[in-house]
């Protein structure tokens, strides 16, 4: 469960409001899609949820824990994948996964099983012993995802996770996320792909210029927008300048 209450974040001494009084809740077992145009405040919101940025005001609660007051406990139950796979290029894939396993306290047996599974699913098992520097963009994205998946946290926060993934890996990731949420976990993810949001998400929020413009199931969004058309059309209407 993730709850954001009146969260604000501004830059340039308040001149630029990146996130403006954002309030939303992601329930357990829910796949929550976060949409918005470029520069709408999606990544800023995500970075505040995982503790990379501090909100100017408001609270963010993850599984009942305030992420400012109990940051370590929140981090221990959250896995984050950024939009750009900036990662330790000089480590091998296996060393990176071991580092993540060590800092999240994943036991050896569990780590071996999960790492083996995800390296196989993402077809990284042939490169696990090679430096990440030798990986393509998509492979880097997959090793960061594998790092998040071996932790098996309660909450996944993924910033455009499908960008750069091949269709097979995207399919496996979506299946894994569905199964994670069916077990009561939470997934908060941002995307630009309307089709994915439409088919994959239980609920969707649309943010525009830092403000929440719509939030609900696809049916609810259609009702709010008075549209019976696609999510793309609703999105375009809600985010029109």
């Amino acid at each position, binding site marked *: 469960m993730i709850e954001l209450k009146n969260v604000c974040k501004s*830059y*340039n*001494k308040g*001149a630029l409001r990146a996130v403006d009084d954002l309030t939303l809740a992601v329930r357990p077992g829910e796949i929550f899609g976060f949409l918005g145009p470029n520069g709408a405040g999606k990544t800023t919101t995500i970075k505040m949820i*995982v*503790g*990379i*940025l*501090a909100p100017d005001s408001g609270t963010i609660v993850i599984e009942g824990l305030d992420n400012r007051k109990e*940051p*370590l*406990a929140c*981090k*221990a139950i*959250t896995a*984050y994948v*950024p939009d750009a796979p*900036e*990662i*330790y290029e*000089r*480590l091998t894939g*296996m*060393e990176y*996964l*071991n*580092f*993540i*396993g*060590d*800092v*999240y*306290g994943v*036991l*050896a047996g569990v*780590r*071996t099983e999960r*790492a*083996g599974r995800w*390296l196989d699913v993402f077809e990284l*098992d*042939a*490169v*696990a*012993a*090679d*430096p990440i*520097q*030798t990986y393509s963009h998509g492979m880097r994205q997959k090793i960061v995802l594998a790092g998040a998946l071996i932790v098996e946290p309660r909450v996944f926060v993924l910033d455009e996770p499908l960008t750069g993934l091949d269709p097979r890996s995207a399919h496996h990731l979506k299946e894994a996320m569905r199964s994670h949420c069916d077990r009561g976990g939470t997934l908060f993810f941002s995307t630009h792909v309307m089709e994915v949001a439409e088919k994959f998400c239980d609920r969707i929020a649309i943010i525009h210029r830092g403000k929440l413009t719509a939030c609900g199931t696809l049916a609810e969004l259609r009702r709010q927008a008075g549209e019976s058309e696609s999510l793309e059309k609703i999105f375009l209407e809600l985010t029109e300048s």
Partner: protein
Amino acid sequence: MRRLLALLRTGLRQNFALALLKHKVLKERKDIWLVLLAAIGLLSLLPVLWGYVTLLRHIFSILKPMNQETALLTLAILAGQFLILVFGLFYVLSAFYFARDLEFLVSLPARPFEVIGAKFGVILVNEYLTVLFVVAPVFVVYGILAGKPIGYWPLAAIVFLLLPVMPLALAGLLVMAMMRLVNVSRKKDFLILAGSLTLMTITIFLQLGLASNRNPDELMKFFTAPDGLVRLVGEKFPPCIWASRALAEGSSSVGLVSLVLFVGVSIGVLLLLLLAAEKLFYRGLIGLSEMAARRKKLSKGAMAKGFSRVRGSGQAIVLREWRLMNRTPIFLLNGILSVILVPVMIFFMVRSESGSMTTGILKILGSGNRTAGILFAAVFFIACGCLNGTASSTFSREGKNFWISKVIPVAPARQVMGKFLHSYLVAVLGTLGGSLAARFALGLGWQIILPAALLALTAGVLFTAVNMAIDLARPLLTWTNPQRAIKQNLNVVLAMALDAGIVFAFYYLAQFLRQAGLDGSMLITALFVALIVLAATAVFLLARFADRRYATIEI
């Protein structure tokens, strides 16, 4: 040419982060303190500058009666050019081959010589800042004391502006030739390291070779002949003689010929670099980031073995630091390798005449005044262990990967202690190397080395914590060129300045304690206790600071 200028303008703005600084200071109104700090830093250099100028005036007054005052110019030019050649090797290697903007630059419709020309220009501007404090005061002191006419000053400006061109272009040519050879191999990282060390060794030996010995009769000839000392200093590197004569002789025929030679050769070497860039640059660069990969599917057994070793979070962080530092050639050259190189260089330097003089002084210090010997050796060990930038770039080195440190469930204090252990390990290795050099190259006794090493190891805790705190206060995380994270990082310079301040404070404390009547052993013990207290406090405060600071670093 227009493309070259556009690339140069963009490169300079990127190098000095002008847009970012303007945005932070003027728009976000952040980092204003940094501007103040830089101003204070510059002001604090004034006393040092005054001391330097006084020394130069003194040297001038000694050389003048012998008609050898022009040697002051030759010495300054030679020192400046060698400084640029040695440091330039790293700058050039990093800027030409490891900057992250290269993939973008290569894709532009620009010729290799334009890319190299722009990169060369950026390094050149950086080098002006380096030599400004070494060479410019000499030109000014000489100009005033020799009563040079007004025509001297534009000549001095021309020589100053051209001073770094030749050594940097030579460094560029050497590095491009090396990288062309390295890029055919699969073991690129190893060859880059080996090649860089070889080039550095060659330049250092060249420098030592210049200080070759002569018998007293030969030396006397140089002192009695007009301009003799200039020839003695610059005989193995004639451009220094040309530059000195261009300044000293002014509009005379000797002066003009020297100026034409200096300007012509500088521009000639630069053109050679640009020409070589067309032939060598892309061949050395393209495919450089492609590393040898095994691409071999792991067996179940190998997988189980690979994931079987579970470590604590602190241990995992130390291991990460160690691997990232030592597997990045630029970081390795400035870390472990630099602490190994210092003792090796000392070993070779003491083989020279001036070196044996140093050994003699040290022996006298060691035998005559044991306390002074211990303190002197301790400062030397501290320099060996702590002046390498490992601690003062520990956060900056993470760059854009710092998001990982922000999201992992490990308390910042614990993360920082992991980083501390890694940096301190490098300091310990430096102290160890310094101790071995002191024993086997300088011939100091263990009775001096052991207490000095103990002091240095304790001081290492203090300096590591202080240096890390400086980098934590303003980590440079947006670099595109790893060189900027360590070699061109202001934090490293600030840390060195602060370290020097602490050493001076301890020097005055030692003076005070001696005047208060403490004998040698008591004085060393008192300093040791003071260092322990300060070191423990610094580590405690660093951990507290980390918990507060990590939350506010935004990336």
